[in-house]
């Protein structure tokens, strides 16, 4: 299919007599968590680099992994890291691209962004279905200054399997033993309660529509939808607000040199300012891609690490630190 496309593009450019250089099209698919940045990058890169077109479809981490295994795409994005043995079994290479935060959003009348505080017990209690009303004594005790209405809590979560859910349920498993025992973590789990929304925008939509709802989504989506975010408790017991600063505080802890195959989960990291639901998003490439395509992709990813970093920061994602980029270049790109 891809060859056919490239072929027809070639034929078309030759026919129009516009350019004689070969057109390279790099196709990627996967995680929707970093999709806002990836789409910005692919557009900017394709504009600035004549002859190369990069596409990224936000289809979800699991779908991206399936597609790269089936060789239907050239690279995949995933928030759900693959262990080293999985990568080797499927002839894949994985490296980190960005760090970002998953935030908790609420639609409670009278509650503005970053006003509401939820600690580990109330967060897990709500998602376990044990705390069902916003005027619950435990929530009130944490928020003495807020007027919380007598309103049912409607839990919203992802209906599809997703890397965002992986990060979020991983966080819940770390803060609540009951969650870890009853539900566990994964890109889709058996949710005790909650309405399912399709992808990040679906969750935002449902939270915006339902009074008394609570949901989780990637930070950029929450900002775009203008939804009220919640302060959460981190490993040090501090309440933190979600922003690029608290995401990078969590990311600073990561010890990449001791992570085989770059397998790393960044939830519930130590540090006074660390945001507890921070996640890494990865790129997967095949080892058996032909050399020309591999070179084009590595050029692109190198551009993402350097020139792309500014755009990522603007969109509230944290680029991978310089020293980690060097490890990626040494181990994967070489």
């Amino acid at each position: 299919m891809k060859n056919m496309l490239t072929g027809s593009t070639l034929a078309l450019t030759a026919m129009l007599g516009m350019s004689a250089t070969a057109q390279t099209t790099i196709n990627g698919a996967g995680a929707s968590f970093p999709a806002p940045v990836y789409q910005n990058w692919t557009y900017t890169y394709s504009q600035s680099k004549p002859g190369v077109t990069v596409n990224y479809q936000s289809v979800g981490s699991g779908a991206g992994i399936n597609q790269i295994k089936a060789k239907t795409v050239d690279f995949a994005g995933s928030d759900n890291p693959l262990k080293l043995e999985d990568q080797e079994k499927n002839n894949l290479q994985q490296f980190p691209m960005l760090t970002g935060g998953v935030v908790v959003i609420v639609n409670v009348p009278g509650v503005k962004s970053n006003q509401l505080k939820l600690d580990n017990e109330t967060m897990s209690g709500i998602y376990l279905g044990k705390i069902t009303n916003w005027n619950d004594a435990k929530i009130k005790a944490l928020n003495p200054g807020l007027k919380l209405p007598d309103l049912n809590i409607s839990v919203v979560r992802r209906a599809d399997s997703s890397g965002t859910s992986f990060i979020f349920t991983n966080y819940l498993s770390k803060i609540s033993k009951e969650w870890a025992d009853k539900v566990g973590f994964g890109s889709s789990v058996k949710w005790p309660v909650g309405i399912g929304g399709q992808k990040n925008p679906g969750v935002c939509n449902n939270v915006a529509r339902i009074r008394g709802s609570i949901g989780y989504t990637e930070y950029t989506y929450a900002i775009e939808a203008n939804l009220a975010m919640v302060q959460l408790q981190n490993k040090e017991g501090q309440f933190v607000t979600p922003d690029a600063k608290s995401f990078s505080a969590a990311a600073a802890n990561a010890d990449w040199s001791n992570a085989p195959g770059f397998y790393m989960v960044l939830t519930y990291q130590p540090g006074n300012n660390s945001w507890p639901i921070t996640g890494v998003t990865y790129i997967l490439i095949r080892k058996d891609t032909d050399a020309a395509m591999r070179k084009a992709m590595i050029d692109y990813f190198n551009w993402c690490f350097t020139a792309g970093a500014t755009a990522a920061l603007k969109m509230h994602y944290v680029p991978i630190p310089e020293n980690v980029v060097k490890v990626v270049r040494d181990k994967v790109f070489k």
Partner: protein
Amino acid sequence: MFKVDTAFKWLCLGCAGIIGVLMMGFFIQLFMSSMEIWNEFGLGFIVSSEWNPVTNKYGALPSIIGTLSTTVIALIIALPLAFCAALFIVDARPQMGNILGQAVDLLAAIPSVIYGMWGLFVLAPIMQDYIQPFMVDKLRMDKLPWVSDEFNGFGILTAGLILSIMILPYICAIMRDVFQMTPAMLKESAYGAGCTRWETTKDIVLKYGIRGILGGVFVGLGRALGETMAVLFVIGNMMGMPDNIFSGATTISATLAGNFPEADGMQRSALFALGLILLAMSFAIQVFAQYYLHATSAKRGEAR
């Protein structure tokens, strides 16, 4: 000349045959792809309510219950509406009947994803703010076992309501056709014998058109069973057993649409098994409908 005839005969046979082969192919394909599930859980898959991707345990019951309950609600709402609308359109003055008939038909032309968007942005908030509070606070329906006082606008009732609007034009169109075929002579005789309009409708039109009404029910049933997009938006996509008509649930088609892109291994097999169940349900309804209509046609004195 003879050759052309023979060729044409074989062509037609081939075309007719393809349909049968395709149908068989669907069943076989779905069955093959879901083998893993049938091997692992057997028929217990159908009655199990567990759906846990973490432990790889799957069951179809929540999806089946969700499919059936939304369909039943849709039919309960749509049938009387379609029946009355069809009666009126048939008996109304021609211009008016035409306009109203066209309007009902237009409902069928709206793509289902538009119904879904409308459901999410308009109907769900209306349900949460007005209809569900009215049912609970004013009608005190939460005393009934299948209604709860917890609601958020999503769920089985909302999905059933959207479905009812979607199947209404199909049911109505079939009913109209049948009512129109009631011989004028019969109706005139009834009026002549001193029957009121209601009596004529009840005893003549309804008796004569029972086949059409049942036909309409089955067409509506078939359509409601498989509807995906509109339901996906408002059902709530909860993989658990619903306790009441306000609770979120999922239907077979919504489960398929929501999970297929990401599924692999056992989960993928479970989704194929759900597809097989849905196909079997639709197939059974069609077969039953044909059989029932055939068996009862003699009693209604129709020539077959």
